[in-house]
């Protein structure tokens, strides 16, 4: 079984559009949405939820009345999450990372780590395949852990049902959810755009796939808005042994299709749709070797 993650560095370059069209074109596969705090794959795939599970994420420290304001916890907290221990101790849940150092050092056992529900993850059926996705509670932590959960579920299903491929829609950036979505996959496809921001973020996210030694493809979306920059992306790919797998032209029909909940590959007159099909043919060679 092969796995591919679609990432971008910069947000809004077209990850989800490309992923959802790939999912419609693929066979014997499972789909995963690993952008757990801004999940969008379900919008086009329109799946029916079959199973919902609680996500109990990392814990946050809470302090009780037994506190004597000795200040030990404040001294040792590396995240500046504890303040005012000399008078009225406060723990800032935004800064607290749930490491447990304060709980450990408290001489009167006034601090406890409390784990709460931080979201849900779902196994759903779409017309094309099983989709495993999640919803992190707004503002919650541990998106990386939730991505790992979602991927484990997808891998179990894929193994049990003898599926050939897992297609993972990634998150923007290079942080926890991105790293968790790349861990152990066979391929990464970076969707970029020929803007200075797009290039800057492409280079950063490529550093990550290189760090984890993952075979990387690149695809330039809206390549025709700046041909000079597209050229620069080509050069970078050549120098860094990244396979340039396609370039998609700017096409107004993409957002029109999306608003009508339609797939761009089903729009015969769309140049972008045609190009996505071509890219899929190349990706398919890797995902389904013989």
């Amino acid at each position: 079984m092969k796995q591919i993650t679609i990432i971008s560095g910069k947000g809004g370059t077209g990850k989800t559009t490309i992923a959802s069209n790939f999912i419609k074109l693929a066979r014997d596969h499972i789909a995963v949405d690993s952008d757990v705090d801004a999940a969008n794959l379900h919008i086009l795939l329109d799946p029916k939820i079959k199973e919902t599970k609680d996500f109990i994420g990392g814990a946050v420290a809470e302090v009780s009345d037994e506190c004597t304001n000795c200040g030990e916890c404040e001294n040792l907290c590396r995240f500046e999450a504890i303040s005012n221990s000399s008078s009225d101790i406060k723990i800032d849940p935004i800064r607290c990372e749930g490491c447990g150092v304060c709980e450990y050092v408290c001489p009167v056992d006034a601090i406890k780590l409390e784990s709460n529900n931080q979201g849900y993850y779902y196994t759903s059926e779409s017309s094309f395949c099983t989709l495993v996705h999640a919803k992190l509670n707004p503002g919650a932590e541990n998106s990386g852990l939730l991505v790992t959960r979602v991927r484990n579920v997808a891998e179990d299903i894929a193994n049990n049902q003898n599926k050939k491929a897992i297609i993972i829609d990634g998150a923007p950036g290079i942080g926890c959810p991105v790293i968790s979505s790349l861990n152990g996959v066979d391929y990464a496809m970076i969707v970029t755009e020929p803007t200075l921001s797009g290039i800057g973020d492409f280079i950063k996210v490529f550093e990550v796939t290189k760090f984890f030694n993952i075979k990387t493809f690149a695809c330039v979306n809206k390549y025709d808005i700046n041909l000079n920059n597209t050229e620069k992306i080509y050069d970078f790919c050549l120098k860094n042994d990244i396979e340039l797998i396609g370039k998609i032209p700017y096409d107004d029909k993409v957002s029109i299709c999306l608003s009508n909940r339609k797939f761009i590959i089903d729009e015969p007159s769309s140049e972008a749709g045609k190009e996505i099909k071509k890219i899929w043919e190349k990706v398919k060679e890797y995902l389904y070797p013989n």
Partner: protein
Amino acid sequence: MILSVASGKGGTGKTTVAVNLALSVGFCQFMDYDVEAPNAAFFLKPDIKHIQKVEMKHPYFLKEVCNACGKCAEFCNFNAVAVAGDEVIFFPELCHGCGGCLLVCPEGAVREKDVEIGKIKKGFSKPGINFYMGDLKPGYMRTISVQAALDKFIEKDILIIIDCPPGTSCPMVFSVKDSDYCILVTEPTPYGLNDLLISIEVLKDMGIPYGVIINRDGIGNDEVENYCRKNNIKILLKIPNDMEVAKYYSRGESMLDYDISWKGKFENILKEIKKDVRK
């Protein structure tokens, strides 16, 4: 006043709005909190004068002292330490640098070293913008640590514009936490609306006033606008979809470069916002 620009969905135009607002106002402090993908510098072109490392502590284990009792692994809530046989294995990418393993080791076998996880860059942009950005080192997950290092530079009694990361999880919450007002930039598509709703929930929970800017107006449909009108959410501005603007953006040029009349529109937004700020 601290004014943050956030979005939920990525690529809707946060940086475009933050940068053009800063250039229109002229005098402010600009902070790029999107440390995983910092892009404001492409447009503000700051003259970077200071670069400073952001570091965290990583443990290392003295083999000759360690007796593999496993207390460190048992303590670590992030699974960054494991004991296999008579050896401790450390997974640096999972470590939060809390120092717990050092604290619990009965043998005194744990030491710490500084590891670079990113940089803070400081500079000046014309006309009068004090520019700060965080830059997370690829391969590290310490987004929040780099943002926390940026927090230290926030000045008082000046307009602070914060360019936030996408999403609605901890890096976004950390970026908006001290804001007096947050601008949510969205696009008029089902994806834009879906993520806008989640961002609004976050801001409501935190008690931060907000308004919406619709970017690339004209694409997609009017679901976002209808939602805002129905729920009495202020639409601060609509930026029409324009291939020319996209081309300027691609070269790192601002909307003011394209059409100076945007300056007045962004200044007006600021006046509008001042009516609604927290406090």
